């Protein structure tokens, strides 16, 4: 059977997120417990988490999380990492063995910073340098796969039910101000850990529920800008689109939402002439980045989180608030599990982004 990346595997899913605007630490165990309530939305073929603010001691270094199929792959890839980066720390990612999670690859973590001379030679900015290196490993180094490469954040994912994946990675030993989670229901057996979600690029991580119908239109467009979609998953292409719009095109989060879940023309026409002109401009220039078909996504980034539904709201998504805490989930039960007494709870409309940021923290994207 073909591995993920060789064929396109549709899947349904569960997602959840929690964010502390005051930046206070949330234990990773909380989001794992939230996912247990949505067990039925996954089928044990993929689960994962992303945590932000989890590596304060190395907060200025890029944390590479890497899967290796075997030791040969590892030594090959490490040569490349060593060549491109200064490695400040490396170790296996600590795991808790469990019969529910099997066939694990070698899972390593590196805290790195680009070699300054290499970076200067490349004439790229630091982030672009990182992206190119990661894409290179993932496309050229067979048996190696970088699944997380941001600063002060990390992705943890595996084949299994989300709660077992959380247990496996010992997430109750991590603390961060922001967490997202994903449980997967693919219609096919990928059997490959890289195919699980979240998918991430630098500090952007995406968890996504849905199956987009615009996939190939999006993929063929974004690949013009140096991205290479190797997994053929929606999440991968959405991550690249967001990276492109926020980092390359320097759009705000709201503008990004207006591209990927663009308002309908008749909605645009009801806006003020100035606003309408801007919406029209974005829809025209980035027409190939409109995403159609059902999706609900949680985008995690340094200092914030954005929730977004497709423009018809074909996938469920609920948001709850309590003080400085904001909760997101496919189903209300997951929010109630994290906070039984939320102050308010609502279901955002299709195409309307819900954006939360650290109070006084980095105001990203604007």
């Amino acid at each position, binding site marked *: 059977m073909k591995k993920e990346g060789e064929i*396109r595997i*549709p*899947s*349904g899913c569960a997602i959840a997120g929690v964010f502390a605007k005051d930046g206070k630490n949330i234990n990773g165990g909380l989001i794992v417990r939230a996912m247990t309530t949505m067990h039925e939305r996954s089928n044990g073929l993929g689960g994962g988490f992303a945590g932000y603010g989890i590596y304060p001691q190395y907060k200025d270094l890029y944390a590479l999380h890497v899967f290796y199929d075997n030791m040969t792959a590892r030594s090959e890839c490490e040569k490349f990492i060593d060549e491109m980066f200064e490695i400040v720390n490396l170790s296996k990612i600590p795991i808790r063995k469990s019969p529910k999670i099997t066939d694990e690859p070698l899972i390593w973590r590196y805290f790195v910073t680009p070699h300054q001379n290499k970076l200067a030679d490349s004439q790229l900015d630091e982030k672009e340098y990182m992206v190119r290196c990661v894409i290179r490993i993932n496309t050229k180094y067979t048996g190696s796969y970088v699944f997380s490469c941001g600063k002060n954040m990390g992705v943890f994912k595996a084949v299994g039910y989300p709660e077992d994946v959380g247990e496996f990675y010992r997430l109750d030993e991590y603390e961060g101000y922001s967490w997202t989670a994903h449980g997967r229901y693919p*219609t096919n057996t990928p059997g490959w850990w890289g195919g699980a979600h979240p998918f991430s690029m630098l500090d952007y991580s995406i968890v996504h529920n*849905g*199956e987009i*119908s*615009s*996939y*190939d*239109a*999006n993929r*063929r*467009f974004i*690949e*013009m*800008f140096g991205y290479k979609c190797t997994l053929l998953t929606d999440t991968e292409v959405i991550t690249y689109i967001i990276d492109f719009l926020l980092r*390359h*095109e*320097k*759009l705000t989060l709201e*503008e990004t939402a207006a591209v990927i879940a*663009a308002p*309908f*023309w*008749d909605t645009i026409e009801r806006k003020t002439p*100035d606003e309408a*002109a*801007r919406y*029209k*401009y*974005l*829809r*025209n*220039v*980035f*027409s*190939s980045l*409109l*995403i*159609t*078909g*059902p999706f609900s996504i949680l985008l995690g980034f340094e200092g914030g989180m954005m929730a977004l539904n497709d*423009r*018809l709201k*074909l996938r469920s998504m609920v948001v709850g608030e309590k003080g400085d805490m904001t909760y997101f989930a496919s189903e209300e039960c997951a929010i109630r599990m994290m906070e039984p007494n939320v102050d308010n709870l609502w279901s955002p409309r299709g195409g309307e982004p819900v954006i939360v940021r650290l109070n006084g923290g980095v105001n990203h994207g*604007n």
Partner: protein
Amino acid sequence: MAIDFLYPEFEVVRDQSRCIACRVCERQCANEVHSYDEDLKLMVSDESRCVNCHRCVSLCPTRALKIIKSPHTFRENANWTQDAIQEVYRQANSGAVLLSSMGNPKQFPVYWDKILINASQVTNPSIDPLREPMETRVFLGKKPTNITRDQNGKIKTDLPPQLELELPILFSAMSYGSISYNAHESLARAAVEMGTYYNTGEGGLHKDFYKYGAHTIVQVASGRFGVHKDYLEQGAAIEIKMGQGAKPGIGGHLPGTKITGDVSATRMIPEGTDAISPAPHHDIYSIEDLRQLVYSLKEATEYKKPIIVKVAAVHNIAAIASGIARSGADIIAIDGFRGGTGAAPTRIRDNVGIPIELALASVDQRLREEGIRNEVSLIAGGSIRNSADVVKAIALGADAVYIATGALLALGCHLCRTCQTGKCNWGIATQRPDLVKRLNPDIGCRRLINLLTAWEHEIKEFMGGMGINSIESLKGNRLMLRGVGKKKKELSILGIAHAGE
């Protein structure tokens, strides 16, 4: 000479028991097939003049007429077919190039018919276009991805000039001269009504139609007929015609008999003179010359109008398109070898050029590989026959399609393929006033609107089935297509998988 005798291609079958000798057929036939025999008191026919345009058949009040293919044959020969033999006789007699009209009728693969479209099941909902919004608006033009902002941080919204279409279908170039005033009026009014564009072709723009200018694409071809400042300014966009799918590499020839009154004034040439467009533009012998013409036209119109470069689909089309994309053109129109024409040398029409499906697929792919797909929009033409062809063309990578033969069919054309004679019984490819008035522009316009509306409904149904609610998500979405019964090589050029994969 007896050896030149060609047995008529069709038989006119008249059921004398039904015929009431009303002589409608006689009056309707510009080819003078029918006549009344006073002695016999019967209608008779000279089938040697019949072109099988169905005008008489359609208007006979008693359904007394039908036209059938003559069963008369040469001795069967798979190599020397009837056409092959007769064409030799005709050329041996005339010493001339054979002329034909409309698109290539030969047995070449129609790739559209070997491509199937996807639909959602279970994992992804289909969308009902009757209940949910379904958008088909398209913009054609350059789309630079370099955002600039004003001092308040707001995005500046100025863009190079764009054409805005309510649905991704435009009427392709057909000149006033090759088709009639009423045909042009029908096309122009339908384009206005449907929020799209029609195209003047190379014959200039009749003053009466300046009022439809906002929905008109004005063409500049190698003969430069009818090109002047006012003309350029009337149009919403300017199309440089480098080639045409039906006759790549050669120019055009409108016989003097069609250059009457208004046609001559519009083309700015004397009445009765042949209008000959040279094969190349004599100021464009290479790509850098094209760039100069593109920029001359932009200068002349103050950079307010997109420039379209229309080329025939030929072998090296991907590289050519890439050159055009870098020449400053805003839109490339590619015309496949099955595209129609008012007159073309038969040999050229039937043997030169390549199918639009393959040309479109390779151009779209090449422009993406070079990272310049956003520099230009692509219009595909050269036999788009129905809404399914439109959907497939867009999924292969076109921004929009051109239709012309389909539009003429809506106006009554019966594809008799004798437009070059100027005696079109349906009032389309003719300048004879008695024939032109047979095409009522009110009805013609209504029928074109009906056609596009019907296609629009069907396109929305296809999109809804795929779970796509805006046409931009269909563009280049080749995953929505599968091939059947085609070779690996063909599928790899089309960039689609085989059904079942």
